[in-house]
């Protein structure tokens, strides 16, 4: 087991070194070495998971004296398997995709180094190893995103990413320093033991240490996972090669969720920070979704979609559903990776088929098919409001009848409810030859998906947090006073039900398009199209600092 853990980051590192040192390297050989190493790494990751399932005992391996340790617990097992899988896909895809690009060997060397750094991060057993890997990922990503050295835009956005990542590195370093100063250990398992023994023994910056450390860790997560207002780099990283976009959107950007889970024993004593995570996540999810809807570039739309998903991931953390965030980041990684890798094909298809639906007369006269119809709006509205909450409620009740007592689980039910309702509304608007049958099939699919999702999420929770007391304490830390919570639930329920009824009513009466949008709508659109001016503010601040620097140099006469 010990050797397997060490090999996980060591193999990609070895592959990078071999590829960098081999003289007169042929492209095919470079790809073969690198893909071979990625394949073995994936097999090793699978073996470590199987071994852990057979003997569920965390393993800590020390390579150095004070730091340099690797720790394999359920979180590390799951993450290594996820990372190694995506890494292999990216390696295989790049072999042909990058074949015409210059710097082929450099690309694979960087890709291997990145894999080594990410695997080191997810298996880090002490704070210095974690910081080292966390910092290296930012640096390597900068070079991967700026792989095309002749494109000024690629360089500019690679720099944005690097700077935001550095901004996020520093709070994590400060959190580590404060924790080491207080608890006198670098080892993560020992640190968490000492925190559990004396969580309120120290303060920093006038706050309890756990709150300060939790806040700093959250800030590091915000920068890495593109939370508002540190999100501007994410949609623009499409300037990098597509395999790097995949690696980033399917892997690196999820590091925030991993970090929050890693420091779960800190967040147990930092309930206020969990509320902040919820608020920031919610704002990010809303803004990411709004910005995604206004994009006309498929890759940029995917970028904003990732931002929205990262927001949801932080919402999950904010309500205490830490294991769900890990499930979310892996599921999101897989489907977003698929979307990116197939985005070129989608663009190609769109060029061949316009995708405009035929009108009713054409369908009836030329295609000789009956005209499509819709369900009665009242029936559809009732189904939309009732069915998703019933399906979600029942499936959650089946895996654990006590879930109603957990505020976090109830909040997540609301998100599931809105998503399910969105699906049924989209089905209602479809117009089909037999609308009842279509609706029934969609509801059946919803039942299968929700039941599967709930079961897997429950299994994930049991695997990642075998200590049920810790899981319950995280939920408790994320809770708010019961009366406030019940009032909020009431208001939300009322808003959702009345909102959907109003939507159906308006839709049925015919949504007459307003050709003269109001000033307010125009102002909102311009605000969204300029991406809320966040990037412009950063650009202005950048110029101010550079101007100050020039003035200082002139004043100090360059010495």
């Amino acid at each position, binding site marked *: 087991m010990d050797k397997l853990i060490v090999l996980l980051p060591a193999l990609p590192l070895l592959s990078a070194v071999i590829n960098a040192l081999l003289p007169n390297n042929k492209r095919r050989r470079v790809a073969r070495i690198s893909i071979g190493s990625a394949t073995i790494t994936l097999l090793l990751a699978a073996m470590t998971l199987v071994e852990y399932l057979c003997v569920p005992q965390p393993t800590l391996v020390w390579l150095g004296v004070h730091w*340099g340790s690797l720790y394999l617990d359920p979180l590390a097992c799951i993450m290594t398997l996820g990372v190694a899988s995506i890494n292999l896909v990216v390696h295989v895809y790049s072999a042909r995709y990058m074949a015409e690009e210059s710097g082929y060997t450099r690309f694979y060397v960087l890709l291997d180094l990145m894999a080594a750094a990410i695997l080191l991060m997810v298996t880090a057993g002490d704070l210095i190893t974690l910081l*080292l890997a966390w910092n290296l990922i930012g640096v390597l990503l900068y070079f991967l995103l700026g792989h095309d050295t002749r494109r000024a835009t690629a360089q500019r956005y690679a720099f944005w990413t690097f700077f935001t990542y550095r901004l996020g590195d*520093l709070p994590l370093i400060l959190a580590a*320093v404060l924790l080491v100063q207080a608890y006198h250990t670098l080892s993560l398992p020992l640190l968490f033991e000492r925190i559990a023994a004396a969580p309120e023994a120290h303060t920093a910056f006038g706050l309890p240490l756990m709150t300060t450390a939790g806040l700093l860790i959250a800030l590091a997560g915000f920068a890495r996972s593109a939370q508002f207002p540190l999100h501007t780099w994410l949609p623009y990283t499409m300037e990098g090669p597509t395999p790097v976009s995949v690696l980033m959107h399917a892997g690196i950007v999820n590091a925030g969720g991993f970090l929050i889970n890693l420091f779960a024993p800190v967040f147990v004593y930092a309930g206020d920070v969990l509320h902040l995570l919820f608020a920031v996540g919610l704002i990010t999810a809303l803004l990411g979704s709004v910005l995604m809807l206004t994009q006309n570039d498929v890759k940029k739309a995917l970028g904003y979609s990732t931002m929205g998903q990262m927001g949801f991931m932080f919402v999950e953390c904010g309500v205490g559903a830490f294991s769900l965030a890990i499930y979310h980041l892996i599921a999101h990684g897989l489907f977003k990776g698929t979307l990116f890798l197939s985005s070129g094909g989608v663009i190609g298809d769109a060029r061949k088929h316009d995708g405009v639906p035929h009108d009713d007369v054409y369908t009836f006269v030329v295609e000789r098919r009956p005209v499509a119809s819709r369900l009665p709006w009242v029936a559809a509205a009732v189904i939309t409001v009732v069915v998703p909450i019933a399906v979600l409620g029942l499936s959650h009740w089946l895996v654990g009848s006590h879930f109603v007592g957990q505020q976090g689980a109830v909040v997540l039910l609301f998100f599931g409810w809105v998503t399910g309702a969105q699906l049924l509304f989209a089905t209602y608007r479809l117009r089909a030859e037999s609308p009842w049958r279509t609706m029934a099939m969609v509801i059946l699919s919803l039942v299968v998906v929700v039941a599967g999702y709930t079961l897997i999420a429950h299994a994930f929770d049991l695997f990642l947090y075998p200590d049920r007391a810790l899981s319950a304490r995280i939920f408790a830390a994320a809770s708010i006073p019961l009366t406030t919570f019940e009032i909020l639930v009431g208001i939300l329920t009322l808003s959702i039900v009345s909102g959907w009824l109003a939507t159906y009513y308006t839709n049925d009466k015919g949504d007459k398009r307003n050709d003269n949008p109001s000033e307010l709508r125009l102002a909102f659109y311009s605000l969204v199209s300029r991406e809320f001016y966040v990037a412009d503010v950063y650009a202005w601040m950048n110029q101010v600092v550079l101007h100050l620097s020039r003035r200082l140099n002139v004043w100090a006469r360059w010495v």
Partner: protein
Amino acid sequence: MLLFVALFLPLYPLSAVQNLILMRLRTPVARAALLLLWPQIGVALLYVLRLEIPAFVVIWALLSAAFYALRLLTVRDLRLWASLLSSSALALTWGLVAHGADIAQLSLFVIWLSLPAALLVLLTGPVVRRLGAAYAGLYAGIVEHQPRLAVILTAVVLCTVATPPFPGFFAMLDLLRDLSSAAALGVLGIWLIWGWSATRLLQGFVVASSSREIDAPDLGRGGMATYVVALFIFAAASLHFTGGGL
């Protein structure tokens, strides 16, 4: 006496002396030697004089380091960049001094931060011989024509701004552990600006296309190997001394 030591462990405006001498020296080897030896004289003086360090010195050191870090952002001359970075980094030594660090710890801290700057100054020699001047933006995109030089330049610049796994990173962590929370915040801000200025410098040398044609040979394999071995030994030594293996 304190002001005398501040000449060698540079605090603005006394730091101007080191920078002036460095700019006047003709050869890269002499400049590198100055960068390495000058702060060690400061450490030796501290050991001999056993000064009491007033609290304001740490604030002065932080302001001095921040002043030079800010200025780095718009410096394009590689030699001057290395010089100012060294002034910014070495000023931070006073944080350790105020905390009562012993001479070995101080001496190592100074080596971890001054050796990369010395290596960078040495590298200005090959850069000037090939490009005519070590000036960012003059000949951009050397990664296309001189990949070996580009790789070494990138590695050395990353080393100077305390990027892991180079020793500066561990030295900075060591320093942060010994500082108060407020001072640590200041040091982190300075570290952030170093990284920013490093990317600006690299973008002026390594990437982007240049309107000027570069017609010069790349760094030889031997030259590259020397730098790689030096950086490897440097990183390995730091891992050894910090207890991270090796």
